[in-house]
């Protein structure tokens, strides 16, 4: 389980500053893609204290203790991941998803058959067991498929020229003001909550307190980054790049891939 946890942590560190909500004292500075300074967590220090029972300490006699065993998260079965993925893709069948993505770009996505083994799907034909531990290849595959999902959702649901009906939107189920000016923090937060619920299954208000701010920073930075590059990006409106990045952060979030 440790391997899984630390692999998930590495994912956050290297790929999404939005995963790190809570400042910790025991950190060191690192630089992620795009020059963003992030915190790299360190393992907890060895316990140097004595094994004195808590209730014997003055003032702790009536403190409620949590003595339940703690279990780390388990991986989403690959079948559940794929079904969730297809549902977010609008309920399409896998081959239709593959066709749709590849019709826009053949470099973004190869084929499900190329990915399912890396995602941990057992292959009974060859006695290959279900993969219950994260691996670098699995993370890379989650990255690739997740990005494909977000890009397709941005193009499908945030097209200002042909905005689909709100009821048919599976990811970006919110309206955006006309124009390309990035949203304010508060305007962002209400929309981010929709995405947070969609991918992670609970309101952003219950997430660590810094999560909204960190994702807003990500959104704002990415929106600004694409300001002068309209002609070279697939995102028709500058703020869409910001929303795509927020989507990347959530679809790659350990809380999405674990449960």
């Amino acid at each position, binding site marked *: 389980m440790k391997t899984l946890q*630390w692999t998930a*942590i590495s994912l956050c560190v290297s790929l999404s500053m939005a995963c790190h909500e809570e400042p910790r004292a025991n950190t060191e500075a690192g630089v992620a893609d795009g020059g963003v300074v992030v915190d790299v967590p360190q393992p907890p220090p060895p316990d140097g204290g004595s094994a004195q029972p808590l209730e014997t300490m003055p003032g702790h006699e009536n403190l409620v203790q949590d*003595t339940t065993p703690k279990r780390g998260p388990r991986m*989403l079965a690959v079948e*559940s991941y794929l079904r969730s993925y297809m549902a977010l893709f609008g309920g399409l069948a*896998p081959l239709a998803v593959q066709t749709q993505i590849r019709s826009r770009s053949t470099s973004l996505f190869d084929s499900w058959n190329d990915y399912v083994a890396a995602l941990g799907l057992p292959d009974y034909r060859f006695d290959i067991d279900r993969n219950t531990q994260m691996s670098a290849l699995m993370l890379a595959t989650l990255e690739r498929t997740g990005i494909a999902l977000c890009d397709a959702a941005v193009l499908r649901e945030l097209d200002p020229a042909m905005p689909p009906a709100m009821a048919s939107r599976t990811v970006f189920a919110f309206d955006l003001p006309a124009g390309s000016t990035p949203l304010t923090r508060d305007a962002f937060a209400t929309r981010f909550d929709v995405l947070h619920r969609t991918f992670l*299954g609970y309101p952003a208000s219950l997430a660590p307190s810094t999560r909204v701010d960190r994702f807003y920073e990500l959104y704002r930075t990415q929106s600004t980054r694409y300001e002068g590059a309209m002609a070279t990006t697939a995102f028709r409106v500058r703020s869409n790049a910001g929303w795509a990045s927020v989507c990347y952060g959530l679809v790659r979030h350990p*809380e999405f891939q674990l*449960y």
Partner: protein
Amino acid sequence: MTRRISRLATLAALTVMAAAPAVFAQRSLDEYRFFRSLSIDLQGRIPTRAELTAFEQPSFNAEAWIDARLPMGPAAERMRVVYMDRLRLALSTVVTVNPLGTILRRIPVTRANGTVEWVYFRRGQRREDPAIDGSMCFTPRELGVQYPTNGDVPATSACNTPRPITDAMLNERTVLVRPWWLYRDYRAATPSQRYDAATWQTLVPGYQPVDGLLTDQAGAPVMAVRVCREEAGVATTGRPFVRTVAVPPAETGCNRRLVGVPNTNTDAMALVAANQRPLCSTQTGFNLSTECGCGPGLERCLPGAAVNNLVAGNMLQGELRRPLGQDAPLESTGLNPSNGALLWWSEEATHFLDAIFRDDRDIRDLLRARDTVINGPLAHFYRHGQQQSCCTTNHLKFDYNQPVNLFDPTNVPSAILQHDVDRWTPVANRGPLASGLLTMPIFLSKYGTRRARAHILYQAFLCKEFIAPNVALMPSNEPNLARRTGCSGCHATLEPMSAFYTRVSESDWTYLPAANFPLDNARCRTATPMASMPSGCAPFYDPSFTTAARSWMRGIYDLTAAQPNANAGPAGLANYIVAQPEFAGCVVDNIAESLLGRELTSEDTPLRTQLTTTLRSSNFRPRAMVRQLILSDAYRRANNLSSTAWREGGAR
């Protein structure tokens, strides 16, 4: 540090909030996590926003929500995956299922008018003319082409000078047939319901022949196929063919035959003497009778769209596996008859498991039930294909030419046609020899030997493993491994379990009935131990247990001890396993460990005991146990580290 939230308190929070005046109930993070876990395990996906909104309503009742989803397909699939992960019931395409009697190959024949036409044939088809007996109905000399064993004729081949076949000869040797793969009503006197891609997707979902079967050499739609005359035979039994004409000298060079002339007169004469006519759907019928063809509309045979004497080529568009089910294919590829068989065998186990969990049946049915679920291609296999492994010349030496099948072909519903690829039909009773997964071809082929079959069942259903004791292996002549020092630690258990499969051939599903195969056969005894056994005995009788006084069937390690198991068959093994005290606990372990994502530990002993009691008290119907598990503290705590804690690698 988080405070402990008891299950009752959380359930109360989820179920009694109806009194709250707010539109949305205030849920805790733990409650949201719990709901997400429920959705993943019972719906097979993360919850939608709409489901989250419903969950947030004060009236939301978690137990009612669970009860509504437990009987549904995704929850059944979740349980099925537990057992498929343990049993791994699928086969690599390295395994081929190409019985000569069901595979229709084809090669192009040039007609007198210069057109080229496919002619379908079975390799090994019996014909009265020894020049073409067992081969294609035109000789290489007549065709001017020597087809290789695999693939088309190379353009550079010296044996590739097509000679036209006269219409008279073509009509003498071949006939036109409206085959099953083109006509839904192929059994009619004049079939008319030809395949149409647009309408057949509704009529028979999933059935999609490859293009090569739908169009001819010129690209025109095929309305009927030309097939060698013997292959078009519709008889159900055939007269044994005893050749009375001398076989001509073997041709050489470009006129060389691809396969030799069958030499089966001895077997055929034995059948004639016994006044028996073999069934045309058996290998005996195919091997010994010129009257046995592919049946009405060629229904006993499977075509391929290649020029290929070894493998027939692709027949249908489909998938090699279906991890998300038939409605969510991950690929679209050509399936030849062999790959198709492997897929459908595996899918039979999948649908059988789904049916048991969806209907909350006695989980012992996994091993004991006589019912199953089949589609069209499987119906074809059980009607015709399964009997192609019997009976060979070795079986005939024991007068075995009418196979007794684990799945009685007469129990296949006649309404299921081969086109019904994605239409799965329950079969209430496969026959008296059927026993859950234990007699399905996927299980018998995946675990080819008797010991492999016993071993995987010991692992998956008793959650036990064979571990060799730390005993020195000494030289020994003891053939009984259940007794031999160093081996007996495992084999004393394994051999009796394996013996239940004595009457089911290894790497096969052919049943060997007692009437033809006594456990101790005087005919196969030898004057001295390990001497050469009489012809035909070695495939069925074990030389290690053969002397002048005995010859025991393979699988028998001690006649007195093994006899009851051998006679009880796979059903006896199923009864033995479910009667073991470990069985119920193993069911609980399998399901609980999968849902909790970890092995059960000593801390889980009370839970394990509760779940086992629930399973037993519900007559081994698993739903109550699964319900109890997902409402348990252990399930709720399956991921109870705070976000911060598990980022920091903490265990608490």
